[in-house]
């Protein structure tokens, strides 16, 4: 396996295990980070998450659609420095509508069944982060970039 396949495998493993990521946005008052539940598409090209439209993160990402999301496997222990994997996904985010929304919503709810009510509420926006680059960090300081497009 080449570096690309190894990286993809690691990513697939991480994104299918983890449920939460840290979303970084930027708005009028500066940078902002928030914890969100996400679901990845099979090709890893898209990360879907949900938020109500009255939130700060929604305001920010509407004004500035380029965002980052950090997803990691830490358990808050010493071993994390060696064993934990972290990935930062970067790309533009957009609210999904129509069929694309329904499809993403189904995937999101399959991953987080207890969030079905939240995901389908009329006040909730389904958002897609179309990943341009993944930055994968292993063993403390080993970093790999994966350019998706």
């Amino acid at each position, binding site marked *: 396996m080449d570096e690309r396949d190894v990286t993809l495998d690691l990513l697939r493993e991480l994104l299918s295990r983890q449920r939460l990521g840290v979303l970084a946005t930027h708005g009028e008052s500066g940078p902002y980070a928030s914890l969100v539940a996400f679901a990845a598409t099979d090709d890893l090209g898209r990360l879907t998450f949900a938020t109500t439209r009255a939130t700060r993160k929604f305001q920010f990402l509407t004004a500035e659609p380029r965002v980052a999301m950090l997803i990691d496997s830490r358990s808050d222990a010493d071993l994390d420095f060696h064993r934990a994997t972290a990935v930062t996904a970067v790309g533009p985010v957009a609210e999904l509508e129509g069929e694309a*929304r329904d499809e993403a919503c189904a995937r999101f709810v399959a991953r987080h*069944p*207890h969030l079905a009510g939240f995901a389908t*509420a*009329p*006040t*909730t926006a389904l958002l897609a982060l179309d990943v341009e680059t993944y930055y994968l960090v292993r063993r403390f300081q080993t970093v790999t970039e994966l350019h998706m497009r």
Partner: protein
Amino acid sequence: MNAPVPLVLPEAEVDARVAPYVGGKALALAKLSRAGLAVPPFSVVTTAAYEAFVDGPLQARILFELERKDVADMRWEEIWDAALRIRSLFLATPLPATLRDALAAGLGPRSDEGPVVVRSSAPGEDSAGASFAGLHESYVNIRGLDAVLEHVRLVWASLWSDAALLYRRELGLDPLRSRMAVVVQEIVAGERSGVAFSRHPERVDQALVEAVHGLNQGLVDGTVEPDRWVLERDSGAVLEHHAATREEMVAPAGAGVRLVPLPRRRRSRPPLTGDDLRRVHGLARGAEGSFAAPQDVEWTLRGEELFTLQSRPITTGGAEDDGRAAYLGLRRSYDSLVVLRRRIEEEALPAMAAEAAELAAVPLGELDDQGLLAELERRKQAHDGWVDVYTRDFIPFAHAVRLFGQAYNDALRPDDPYEFIALLSGTPMLSTRRNAALAGLAATRRGSGRASLAGELEAFLDEFGLEPPGSPGRERERATMAAVVERLASAAAAGSVASGAATGRATGRPATPPEERGGGASATGEGSDARAGAASRRGPATPAPGRDELERRYLEAAGDDERERAAGLLDLARAGWRLRDDDNAYLDRIEAQLTTALAEAERRGLETGGRFAPRAVALPSPLGRPHPAASQPAAAGTGPDTSPAGAVAKARQLVGQPAGPGVGVGAARVVSSLDDLRAFEEGEILVCDAIEPGMTFVVPLSAGIVERRGGMLIHGAIIAREYGLPCVTGVPGATELIHTGDRLTVDGYLGIVVVG
């Protein structure tokens, strides 16, 4: 046990080794049976079956329901709501085929042979020192495998019943660990039944037997008054006999049990003879011997054969009444609700109206001081009396709505567990009628252009006012109403007033995906078209069926045998719904008479020493603690103060219950006094502790409602639904954390309030 626990265990295999998987009730029954007592044969659906059903998404959703908000912050209405939603989750989750097949195989003979009782048997529930009778459900007279499996699910769900949630700490309820076993037992349709205490709960030298004609359910749920004997514990000699008025009994009927008239010839006879009494007492003493602790035994007599239905340790009980017992006492059966309704509608309400009118006719100004004090005494007594009636009859009657909601959900399994409310709302309430009259005044004001509507306003106050004519309170009320009419008139001119029942609006940001907005209506900006509001409230792609259609479905689902009773229950629920509003107004009128007389005494400088102050209705509210924002800061620790100087905390997003769908955006108006109400501006969000009937007139002006009190069935939620306004209830600390003028977004779909 090393092998996996079987999903179903036959009676013969129930012993101490499997105790954690079969629960206290099953274990007790097996033990009694082995001791030679007649126990109806049974099987146990073990906790392994519960686990197989719940593990996975259902467990995650139970967690979500119970962890979203600290249960300690929930009022009992909210706890009931949470239990209702969890119950709906259990009903909506089908039994996996493999589990169903395994249960069918295990229960086969038991469920095929005839009617059974499906009973809860929670591990730990009946252990010594922790007896919690009646927290979980049991179902009597269930026939056929499908019905049995259906009721097994309902018993599982009752692990999270409102009653169980109230005692969650004592029960150690934990969504990740708690499990429920179910006893499926042959029914013994005894002609006479009852309970026996081997030792009187309050007297160590006495014992107690209670008995009714028919099945035990009538005694257990309090609908049938039992005959009661106090016995000498050692000899069994009868010390006292309290005979009941024997008129009704509970008998198996259809798919369940019914309260039926007791045949005349049995009315004059106590359910037990002296000989029977000795046998029943002997049974209780025998059970006490088996368990080495005083027992509370349920029994039934079929012919001369005496069966033991259940045995559990006697709780010391009643040590502290923290309100939970009172709350559980609010639960009423269908039959007792019918009686309650008659008493409220035919006796209490007319009597209250008559008394208020009679008191209002007393010319306080003409009484001398002595006469005024006597009148105060009379009014205080009248008010106290009605507060008692309110507590005793009115509050429990609200249970009709809950009982109906549960029956509706059982019959139709709707996605929205509150769909049933659509069948109740639209029932004209006093406050809706009052608001309609106000809207009429506003229309007159606008149409006529007259600045003064003194005559019309006075007529309005005569019909709907809370303060008696001529009182200082009436002056204030008139000024407030005049201001409200003025606002309504100008708001109506701008076309932005919620007009009740079928209409509503969404202000601010569009609440729906673009394809839902429809109709060309703009859903943006303050005061948007009512149609946009209506569309936004419906949610995605689910055109809501009308009230008539829902009623038809409900009655049809009830089946031919049950239709009449189902219709009766709906009628009861509608009465309960209407009363939740009206009864407050009736009581307020009596209270207004008392406060008017108090004001008169104060005006004259009479010393009353506070003894005539109106007593508040004490709602049973076993839970709910002051929000940290409302209480004093915790005592300072001993260490150095390392808190950051100048740091300020501010609420940004508050969580409550979604109680009225829609989104409202506007400035907050925190209402805690009449002055706040007078200052209420059109388009503001009403933020309050609890909506009082006297406050409802500003509702049509508001863009949304936020209430500290929680629950789907409380006044604020009801009125919000009537007007189609976004509403979030049960927001802890709402009136402290939100300030007048704060910009709020009320998300009535998700129960979220965003500040700023």
